[in-house]
């Protein structure tokens, strides 16, 4: 206990001295730091903050120091997170390397792969993207067809991926490829890493209904990848793929968490809370005048509070060094549905002021609500649809029989 108390006080002192003032405010979209070979820092203090965190390995506090991480145990990691929250500190780095690839490399990668890739993730030097979905392989991911053929000491990759988040901005990709076409679909997949600057790769952004384009189509045309970039065993990629999905779900479920305290991540604007927005747009003083909306908001906030407690409980229950388990599907599903609900309620709260697309008549925040409402619809599709999450819960958590396996067409 004493050692943990000491850790808390030294952490508090360090944060006090090292976390720049502007990094103690709610994150704004444009200032998120993704790292990479050509990093972008909208706010110069973001770079200071990232470098200081990375030096201690605190962008990835629980990873081993050998690979650049902070080497903290579970209790210390919880304390660090509590202290970061206490001063409202922004994350120094947001990356798929931290939330998805890193944890599976630690579990399945060899020493050389860890040594090469993990420290660069910790320092934000390489930005990763995820090559999973294909035009014909969405929920049925394991039917993927992108092909990797071994030719001497390298693989030649052909095919295409879709919904590759930020493929046009990423430096490397972790990718699922088919290395055997003659076995059941799950048994012929491998997990491989390669440089997006390799010859034969093209990317094309996809515009969403919200007008934003976070996703790309990605095409591979005879891309040469060293054979040593294969992670884990040949044709055993599905195991790694599923494990990574659990990490992805945990990451996505945190979207729902933003609704815990203030309903939109702690901004101080009129739309900072659902009830605040609803009262503002109705000119209400003490009590929200629409009783149906009031009930709906109360229900939402109660569910949000319960969801936040559940996320905390799942951390408390997970043992040291043990990553997310099948409950990640539950958290992903619930978190995403909550986030969608939040935007639907926000639309009702703002009335017709939530319906602007661009230009005059609406302020910037109102226009953002419109766009974010539309963007939120992807939450229950990306990272596995809500229906897929319910399938996973039914099969893996509740142990219900799998009718699809009788037809041999399951994912």
């Amino acid at each position, binding site marked *: 206990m004493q050692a943990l108390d000491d850790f808390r006080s030294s952490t508090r002192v360090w944060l006090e001295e090292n976390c720049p003032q502007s990094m103690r405010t709610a994150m704004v979209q444009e200032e998120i730091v993704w790292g990479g070979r050509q990093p972008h820092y909208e706010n110069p203090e973001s770079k200071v903050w990232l470098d200081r965190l990375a030096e201690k390995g605190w962008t990835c506090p629980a990873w081993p120091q050998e690979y650049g991480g902070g080497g903290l145990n579970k209790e210390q990691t919880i304390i660090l997170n509590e202290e970061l929250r206490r001063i409202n500190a922004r994350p120094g780095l947001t990356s798929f390397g931290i939330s998805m690839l890193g944890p599976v490399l630690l579990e399945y990668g060899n020493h050389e792969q860890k040594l090469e890739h993990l420290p660069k993730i910790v320092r934000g030097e390489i930005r990763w993207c995820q090559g999973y979905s294909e035009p014909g392989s969405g929920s049925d991911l394991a039917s993927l067809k992108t092909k990797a053929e071994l030719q001497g000491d390298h693989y030649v990759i052909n095919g295409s991926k879709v919904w590759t988040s930020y493929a046009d901005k990423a430096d490397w990709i972790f990718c699922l490829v088919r290395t055997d076409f003659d076995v059941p679909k799950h048994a012929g997949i491998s997990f491989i890493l390669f440089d997006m600057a390799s010859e034969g790769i093209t990317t094309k952004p996809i515009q969403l209904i919200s007008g934003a384009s976070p996703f790309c189509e990605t095409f591979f045309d005879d891309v040469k990848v060293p054979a040593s970039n294969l992670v884990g065993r040949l044709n055993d990629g599905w195991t790694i793929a599923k494990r990574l999905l659990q990490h992805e779900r945990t990451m996505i479920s945190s979207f729902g968490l933003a609704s815990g305290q203030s309903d939109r991540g702690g901004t101080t604007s009129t739309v900072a809370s659902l*009830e*605040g927005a*609803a*009262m503002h747009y109705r000119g209400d003083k*003490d*009590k*929200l005048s629409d009783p149906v909306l*009031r*009930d709906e*908001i*109360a*229900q939402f*906030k*109660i*569910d949000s*509070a*319960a*969801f936040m*407690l*559940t996320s*905390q*409980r799942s951390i*408390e*229950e997970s043992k040291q060094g043990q990553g997310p388990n099948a*409950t990640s599907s*539950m958290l992903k*599903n*619930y978190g995403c549905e909550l986030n969608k609900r939040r935007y639907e309620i926000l639309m009702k709260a703002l009335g017709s002021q939530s319906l602007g697309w661009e230009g005059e008549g609406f302020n910037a925040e109102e226009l953002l609500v419109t766009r974010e409402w539309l963007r939120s619809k992807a939450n229950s599709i990306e990272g596995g649809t809500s*229906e897929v*999450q*319910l*399938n996973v*819960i*039914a*099969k893996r*958590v*509740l*142990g*219900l*029989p*799998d*009718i699809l396996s*009788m037809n041999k067409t399951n994912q």
Partner: protein
Amino acid sequence: MALVLNEDQQMLKDSAKNFCQQSSPLSVLRKLRDTNDEIGFDRQVWLQMLSLGWAGIAVPEAYGGFNFGYSGLGVVLEESGRTLTSSPLIPSVLIGATAINEIGSESQKLELLPKIIAGELLLALALDEQATHAPSNITTTATKTDKTYLIQGKKTFVLDGHVADKLIVVTRTAGGTDKESGITLFLVDSDSPGLEIKRTSMVDNRNSAQVHFDDVKVPSEAMLGEEGNGFIALDRVLDIARIGIAAEMLGSIQEVFDRIIDYLKQREQFGVLIGSFQGLQHRAATMYSEIELCKSIVRATLAALDNPDLDRIEIAELASIAKAKLSEVYFLVSNEGVQMHGGIGMTDEFDIGFFIKRARVAQQFLGDATFHRDRYATLKKF
């Protein structure tokens, strides 16, 4: 906030589970119903609970209790919810002892708490007057006359009213009908002249009563707490009770869900197990998710009751979160319990019907989901 049970709490939970499954299975409630039992709970089971010390779990040691906190009482209530155990644990211990401990004078605590723990005294709370829970809407009056008070009015939905030795009666000594000020609590002997207690037969087969007060005379020493300032103290007692009820509901919800999952894994139709149908799988998975949220809320709110740093308003918010959410989920799961068992779920011979009956009573008791969402919104100032 502790969201996971510590070792001692887990041990208590395991032993409570053992006891309830062995000594107080659902068949005990069925038998009480079928024999139209006069006291409405099994005296032997209650005596064993007393010998296990359950009546003193949350009571401080100074008054003969075990000072094990509401987290302790909560796990016992949760396990008793799995078997739908009917006992004075809720009216007399969760509500009665808590009221004495929270509101009583030192001498009242010294006198009454050891008796409750020993099983020598059963209490019942006489609060509600109308068909919906409205704890400040009190019209039962207590009029001061010299050194005594005269109570006039009627109460309904009084749990264990017909077996209690004393009633905790919520009265109005001043103020308008729906005012929080002017409310005063009294301890009234159930054999007092002018007091008429009528047992009501409830759908969940547990005890409840309607009580009429016709100039029931009580001495001023029978007052519990301060005159006219009873509401705030009462509301805290109600919040503790709401959280305790939520714990009981959690046990029942999990039991129904376990029975659903078992059934999905053994019932065959169209040549396959019905649990392989996606139409049922997704509903089961949705219930699972909601139940996980319920577990977190119950753990967190019980732990909050044992945390002296939280103030009255924080506890009130948590209690409303718990009672609103657990009521919603118990509604969902008890309905699915019947539906997913199909025809057999509708039969009296099968146990699942007991849960849907208990669910509606538990949902409404001390405020349903709508009541608590409204209260939560008010506490959150919107």
